[in-house]
């Protein structure tokens, strides 16, 4: 008998071929939901209730014994103790010289493992609490790293800020006057992303039309952009990343940020 299964959900999606143990773990951990059909050849699907091995999994019988889940809780509690003794960046597995942006990436990759949706089916209270405490520790760690970055960051030249507005056709236009004192608005590692101060924050991934005016250079950079972060590092506003800037404009932005940000940091 084949040990390979395909399973399909109520939305027409299919997963497989995968051995029973893989499907069982996905179901037990709540990753596969609303399964309606199954197949052992990838072609002929039957209602999942008619495939006994899989039907049993759906009745809620978790393959993970309570003892295993408690052992996992105990392991996480030990891990929490170990992490608390480390420096913030070490807790995220990032090197000491890592930027806040790199730490943010490491934080995101780590914290999602402890999202409540990742709890195994039938997780005991102790394991649920360990997930919560781990998420809280990681979030507090990231806040600590961002606070440290913020305390060393200068304020931006608000008089240069123009802002954003919505046109009648729904287009969002972002405009900034950018002077040498504003170089720190741009990310040092990613010159095509910049911070836009704003009390109202647009939805993540919102597409905008961007116009940056560099008066010192009598130059305008026009490109599309997307909102990539809301209130980053506790600042009121959003990070916008340019999309499709010309190679010449990209080169200019790199030059501008390196020149003025390096000069500011040297002071």
């Amino acid at each position, binding site marked *: 008998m084949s040990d390979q299964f*395909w399973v399909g959900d109520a939305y027409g999606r299919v997963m497989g071929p995968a051995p029973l143990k893989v499907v069982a773990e996905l179901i037990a951990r709540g990753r596969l939901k609303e399964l309606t059909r199954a197949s052992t050849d990838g072609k002929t699907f039957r209602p999942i209730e008619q495939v006994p091995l899989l039907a049993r999994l759906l009745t809620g019988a978790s393959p993970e014994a309570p003892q295993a889940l408690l052992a996992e809780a105990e392991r996480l509690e030990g891990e929490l103790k170990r992490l608390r003794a480390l420096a913030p960046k070490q807790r995220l597995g990032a090197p000491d010289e890592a930027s806040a942006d790199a730490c943010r990436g490491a934080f*995101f990759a780590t914290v999602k493992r402890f999202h409540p949706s990742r709890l195994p089916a039938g997780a005991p209270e102790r394991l649920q609490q360990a997930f919560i405490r781990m998420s809280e520790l990681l979030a507090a760690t990231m806040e600590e790293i961002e606070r440290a970055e913020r305390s060393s960051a200068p304020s931006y030249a608000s008089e240069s800020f123009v802002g954003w507005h919505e046109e009648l056709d729904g287009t969002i236009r972002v405009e900034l006057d950018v002077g040498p004192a504003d170089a720190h608005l741009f990310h040092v590692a990613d010159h095509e992303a910049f911070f836009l101060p704003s009390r109202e924050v647009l939805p993540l991934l919102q597409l905008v039309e961007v116009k940056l005016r560099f008066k010192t250079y009598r130059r305008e950079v026009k490109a599309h952009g997307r909102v990539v972060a809301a209130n980053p590092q506790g600042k009121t506003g959003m990070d916008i990343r*340019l999309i499709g800037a010309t190679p010449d404009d990209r080169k200019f932005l790199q030059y501008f940020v390196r020149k003025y940000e390096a000069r500011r940091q040297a002071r």
Partner: protein
Amino acid sequence: MTPPIILVVDDDKFIRVAVCDSLRDSGFRLIEAENGNAALARLREVEPALVILDLFMPERSGLDTLGEIRKSHPALPVIILSSLDTETMIEEAFRLGASDFVSKPFHPTEIAHSVGKLVRS
């Protein structure tokens, strides 16, 4: 010189847009497919440098698609991008020839880092 092509395969348009935005300015040409069958059709037309592949899709699953890709393009790097990130699933994906596994939800830097690592190598 023509830019390297990355094929992004996911039935969720939001995910495809997010992945493409993460990589657009890295000098790649990005093309999309909304399921495994569409991805295999695109592979007959273009020669991507890398494929980013969801696992749970209509018509043809990601693992089925990965198997077909391995038959026709044994050396093509394939990054699995999926929320089905249990240990046994990740092991199975690597056993079937995945080059990397990035869990959803993802941070743009995770995708960029994984792509950079594989394209450079």
